[in-house]
C-alpha cells in the first residue's frame, strides 16, 4: 500500500434549514455528508460515485476548504487541515487543486489563456516573468495545446480544449492532489477518451493523487484505484475498483451497476432495477438509508443503521446482509 496522502475521518456537513425572514430559526438540517471516512494514497485515484444529492461534491468542497465541515477531520500528509494557518495553510492550498465539470463556466471569459494558467503562479510564487513564461510553455506542452493558445480567449476553444486549459491551470503549482469533479461528463465521447488518457498520463508522470467525483460508473472504474459508493451522505461500500467490478456486494452498488448503461450489448448485467426515488436528505429514512428502495430489505434494516464491515473480498460494506 502506498503512503497515505489524504485521510478524512468521520467527516460531516450539516446545512441548517431555517424558517422566517428576519428572526430566522433553525428547523432542521440537511445532512449532506454524514460521517464519511476514507484514505487516499500517493499516486492513487479515489473515485466517489453516487447519484445527485449523495454528498460527493460537498465532500470535495470541504477538502478544497470551500465549505467548513461541521465535524470530523481532514488529514493531509498526516496534518490536520482545519488547524492549519499562515504559511502551512498556504502550502496546503497550493498542494490541492481542482478541475470542475463545466469548462465553459470555470474559465473567466475575459482573460487570455496565458493569464488564466499563470494566475496561480503570480499569486502564490515569487517567480520572475521569464520563469513564469517558461512554466506556461511547459504546461501547455503537458496538456497538448500549442504555445499560440496562450494569446487566445476561452471562447476560441472547444469543450475538450477548455478542459485541457483547466487541467494546465490546476497543474501550475505542482500540486499533490487534484480534485476532479465530473471532469469529463460535459464532453463528447471521442474527446472524453482524450481527457481521460491525459489525466492518466499526468498522474503517472508526476505521481499525482486524484479524488475523482463522477456519476458515470464505467469511467470511474476505468480511472480509479479505489472506489467509494455514496448514498444520501454515507459511504455504503468501498473497495478496489477490481473488487467492486467483479463482486459488488451492497444492493445499491449492484443497482448502480445494473443501471449503468453498457458500453457493449454483451456487457448487460442482471437487471436489478430499484424502484422509487432518492429520499430527501432533510429527513432521511431511519435505519439503513437505502432500505425503502432496497429489494432485499429486512425488518432490521428499518431500525438499525448498518456500519461499514470488512468483507472477504477486501471491500467494506455497510449492509445487514453481510
Amino acid at each position: 500500500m502506498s503512503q497515505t496522502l489524504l485521510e478524512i475521518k468521520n467527516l460531516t456537513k450539516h446545512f441548517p434549514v431555517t424558517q422566517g425572514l428576519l428572526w430566522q430559526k433553525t428547523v432542521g438540517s440537511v445532512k449532506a455528508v454524514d460521517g464519511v471516512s476514507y484514505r487516499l494514497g500517493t499516486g492513487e485515484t479515489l473515485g466517489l460515485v453516487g447519484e445527485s444529492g449523495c454528498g460527493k461534491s460537498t465532500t470535495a468542497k470541504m477538502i478544497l476548504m470551500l465549505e467548513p465541515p461541521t465535524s470530523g477531520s481532514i488529514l493531509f500528509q498526516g496534518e490536520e487541515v482545519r488547524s492549519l494557518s499562515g504559511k502551512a495553510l498556504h502550502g496546503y492550498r497550493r498542494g490541492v487543486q481542482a478541475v470542475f465539470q463545466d469548462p465553459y463556466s470555470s474559465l473567466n471569459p475575459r482573460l487570455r489563456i496565458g493569464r488564466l494558467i499563470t494566475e496561480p503562479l503570480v499569486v502564490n510564487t515569487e517567480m520572475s516573468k521569464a520563469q513564469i513564461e517558461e512554466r506556461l510553455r511547459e504546461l501547455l506542452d503537458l496538456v497538448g495545446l500549442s504555445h499560440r493558445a496562450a494569446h487566445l480567449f476561452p471562447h476560441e476553444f472547444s469543450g475538450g480544449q477548455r478542459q485541457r486549459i483547466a487541467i494546465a491551470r490546476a497543474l501550475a503549482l505542482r500540486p499533490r492532489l487534484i480534485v476532479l469533479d465530473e471532469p469529463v461528463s460535459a464532453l463528447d465521447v471521442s474527446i472524453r477518451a482524450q481527457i481521460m488518457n491525459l489525466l492518466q498520463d499526468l498522474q503517472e508522470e508526476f505521481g499525482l493523487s486524484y479524488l475523482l467525483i463522477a456519476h458515470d460508473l464505467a469511467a470511474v472504474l476505468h480511472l480509479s484505484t479505489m472506489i467509494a459508493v455514496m448514498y444520501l451522505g454515507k459511504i455504503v461500500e468501498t473497495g478496489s475498483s477490481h473488487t467492486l467490478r467483479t463482486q459488488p456486494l451492497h444492493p445499491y452498488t449492484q443497482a448502480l451497476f445494473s443501471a449503468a448503461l453498457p458500453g457493449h450489448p454483451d456487457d448487460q448485467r442482471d437487471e436489478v432495477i430499484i424502484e422509487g426515488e432518492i429520499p430527501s436528505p432533510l429527513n432521511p429514512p431511519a435505519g439503513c438509508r437505502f432500505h425503502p428502495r432496497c429489494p432485499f430489505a429486512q425488518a432490521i434494516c428499518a431500525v438499525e443503521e448498518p456500519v461499514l464491515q470488512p468483507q472477504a473480498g477486501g471491500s467494506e460494506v455497510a449492509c445487514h446482509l453481510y
Partner: protein
Amino acid sequence: MTEPLLAVNNLQMHLFANRGTRVVKAVDGVSFTLSKGETMGIVGESGSGKTMTSLSILRLLPTAGRIVGGEIRFAGQDLLGKTDREMQRLRGSDIAMILQDPMMSLNPLFTIGEQIAEPLRVHRGMRGTGLFNRLKELLHGVRIPSPETRLRDYPHQMSGGMRQRIVGAIGISCEPSLLVADEPTTSLDVTIQAQYLQLLKEIQQRIGLAMMFITHDIGIVAKMCDYVAVMYAGKLVERAPMRTLFRAPKHPYTEALLKAVPRLNTTTERLWSIEGQPPDLAAVPPGCPFSPRCPVAEARCCRDTPPEFQVGPNHYSRCWLQEGA
C-alpha cells in the same frame, strides 16, 4: 415487403446564416428506414446533426433551416409535401416527441393534468369523464402514484424523474405510431434513467410503438435499440442492426467510438482516443468528413466523398475502404 413506417431518403437540411451567404449543411444526405414497433438509435457527438434530423422529420426546423432535398415518407404519406396545418394534425397525434429537458418542455403555469389533456382534446376531441379517466390511466401507465391528486399538481411540485415521465405520458397520450426521443434521459440520475428506459420499453411493447432515440450515449443504444445509425458532421456514416454494429463495425469512426468508451465488465489499460476535434459544420473538410482524424485515411478520402456501400444485410457504411468489399 411492406412499406416501412418511416422512410427517410437522402435528406438534406441546410441552415442559412448571414442572409444566405453562409450555408451550414446540418443534415447532408441522410437515409434510413424504420419499421413499425422497431427502435432505432441515432448516435453522434454534439453538432453531428442528429437533432436536426429528428426536427426535420417533425418539420419543426429553426427559421434559418430549410430542407433542400430528399424525401421523408411516413405511413405512406409524403411529409415534405404537407401543409403546416396538415403537419400540425400529425404532430402529437401520429408522431410524438420527447425532448431532453423536462423542465423546459413543461409549462410551469399549467397543472400537469391540463398539459396531458391538451393533445387529447385537440387531436381526439375527448372531454369530460372520458378524458379524466384516460388521464388517470396514462399517469398510472407511467407509474405516478395517486394519479387523481397528482393531476392537479404543477411541474415544480415534481422531481426530475417524475417530470420526465409526465413528458412521456404526453408523448404517448394519443397512441402515436412513432415516438421521437431526443436525449430523453441526459438530465436524470442513473437509477432513475434505468427506470425510465425500462418504462419506455414496456410502453413500446404494449402499444407497438416505433421509437427513434437521439443520443450521444452508445450505452442507450446497446440497451434499447434494434437498429443504429451513426452520424458524423451531418452525414450518416454507418447504419446497421445493433448487434452487427457492435460486433463488426465497418466504419473507422464507429470503430473508434466503440473503443473510446470504458467497459463495465472488463479492464482496459488505456482508452482508444480519436485525435483532433469534430469539424466545424460551416467548414467541413472536402471528401470524407472524418478523413482528417481517420487513422486509415488514404489520399482519395480527402478528395472524394464516399457514397453508402452496402456491407451486409441492412448494413451500410460510408467509407471508401468498403468499396467492393
